[in-house]
């Protein structure tokens, strides 16, 4: 009886990785999925936090993909190891702080090590030549295979016929003719293949699946690094960059202002780590104060908190100020007017 070959598929939760895995499954290969959690994944976070998004179906798209494929999915926490990719990308950043090429190399390398440790035969990704400006170009895709160490055990089933044959093709584990020759940024071939397989309701995130490709998020991360004087971060730091309005009125502190009930609830989980403010005479947001502050800074923060409360047009607003030791006091402040808030305070 012939050996059933085994492939590990990088499953992002998007359409391409879903299709790539199915194309290989169709050839009788045993496929399992692997998904890496970097902390920057868009997956569900803001949906889980913001109340206005709570009516949307909440799901992790990588798990959903695995469910559609009927395969096991191994979700790997790489938060700590991934820092070096974000902080020191050998191949540089894309338009924002997105180290796409280094990221892909890192993930394929991790998948390659997993493959060897678990007795699998090759790796599948949903990459398509010419689809992405940094990591999926004709000249960079061989770099991913080479620098990850995967070499010709890395199969891209959606564009394989545009690339040199890999070992699984040469060895006859895969029929090259039943792989695809997609290229470029058009999504039409993928949509057609999804219809052929009967996949519906697949994820097509407009901004991609990583916060680092988002300009506004990258501005906030760059601000974090600059004000701390180093480029390190912890998971809580990068989670908080996804939530609320961020304003830096002075170099020594910034405010994180909840925009609605869901964000306020989320920020409550951080109350013990930060000085925090809450309008008490009027409904208003929870505000975290990040930095080292003096009394004048706290007064300004309270006036800003009042500005974002229902009392913004009142003569004065009472604001609770809680320091990290649990001491509570109240300040009566005049809310700042919109014109008093320079646009460059907003990150």
């Amino acid at each position, binding site marked *: 009886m012939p050996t059933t070959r085994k492939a590990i598929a990088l499953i992002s939760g998007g359409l391409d990785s879903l299709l790539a895995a199915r194309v290989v499954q169709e050839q009788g290969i045993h496929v399992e999925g692997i998904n890496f959690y970097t902390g920057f994944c868009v997956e*569900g976070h803001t949906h889980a936090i913001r109340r206005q998004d709570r009516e949307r*179906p909440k799901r*992790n798209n990588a798990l959903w993909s*695995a469910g559609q494929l*009927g*395969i096991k999915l191994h*979700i790997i926490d790489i938060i700590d190891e991934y820092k070096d990719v974000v902080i020191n990308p050998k191949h540089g950043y894309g338009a924002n702080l997105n180290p796409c090429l280094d990221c892909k190399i890192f993930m394929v390398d991790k998948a390659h090590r997993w493959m060897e440790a*678990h007795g699998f035969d090759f790796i599948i990704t949903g990459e398509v030549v010419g689809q992405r400006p940094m990591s999926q170009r004709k000249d960079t895709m061989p770099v991913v295979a080479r620098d990850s160490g995967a070499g010709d055990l890395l199969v891209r089933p959606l564009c394989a016929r545009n690339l040199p044959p890999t070992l699984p093709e040469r060895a006859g584990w895969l029929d090259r003719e039943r792989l695809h020759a997609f290229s470029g940024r058009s999504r039409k071939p993928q949509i057609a293949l999804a219809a052929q397989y009967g996949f519906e309701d697949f994820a097509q995130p407009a901004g991609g699946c990583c916060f680092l490709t988002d300009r506004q998020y990258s501005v906030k991360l760059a601000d974090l690094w600059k004000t701390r004087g180093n480029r390190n971060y912890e998971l809580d730091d990068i989670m908080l960059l996804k939530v609320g309005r961020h304003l830096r009125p002075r170099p020594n502190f910034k405010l994180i202002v909840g925009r609605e009930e869901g964000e306020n609830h989320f920020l409550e989980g951080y109350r013990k780590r930060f000085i925090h403010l809450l309008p008490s005479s009027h409904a208003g947001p929870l505000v975290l104060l990040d930095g080292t502050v003096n009394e004048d800074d706290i007064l300004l923060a309270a006036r800003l908190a009042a500005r974002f409360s229902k009392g913004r047009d009142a003569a004065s607003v009472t604001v609770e100020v809680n320091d990290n030791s649990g001491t509570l006091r109240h300040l009566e402040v005049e809310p700042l007017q919109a014109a008093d808030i320079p646009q460059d305070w907003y990150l």
Partner: protein
Amino acid sequence: MSSRIVDARNLLCPLPVIRAQDAAAQCRPGDELQVLCTDPGVLHDIPVWCRINGHSVGAITRLDREIAITIHVGGEDRDDG
């Protein structure tokens, strides 16, 4: 059979799933995990994760914003790394 509690409160998906996955890898078939969460995404994600990895979902209870999901660890999948 043993029972363990996995505290994944204030974590956003997929971290509760990862915590459950890591705990399940330390369990024997038939063991029970109770995962405590606050992200409502777990109501979709943990049942899917259980289904594709050979575990089953028992009671799901909600109290205010807290969700408790019981997982019965299956026999086959003990290697989640």
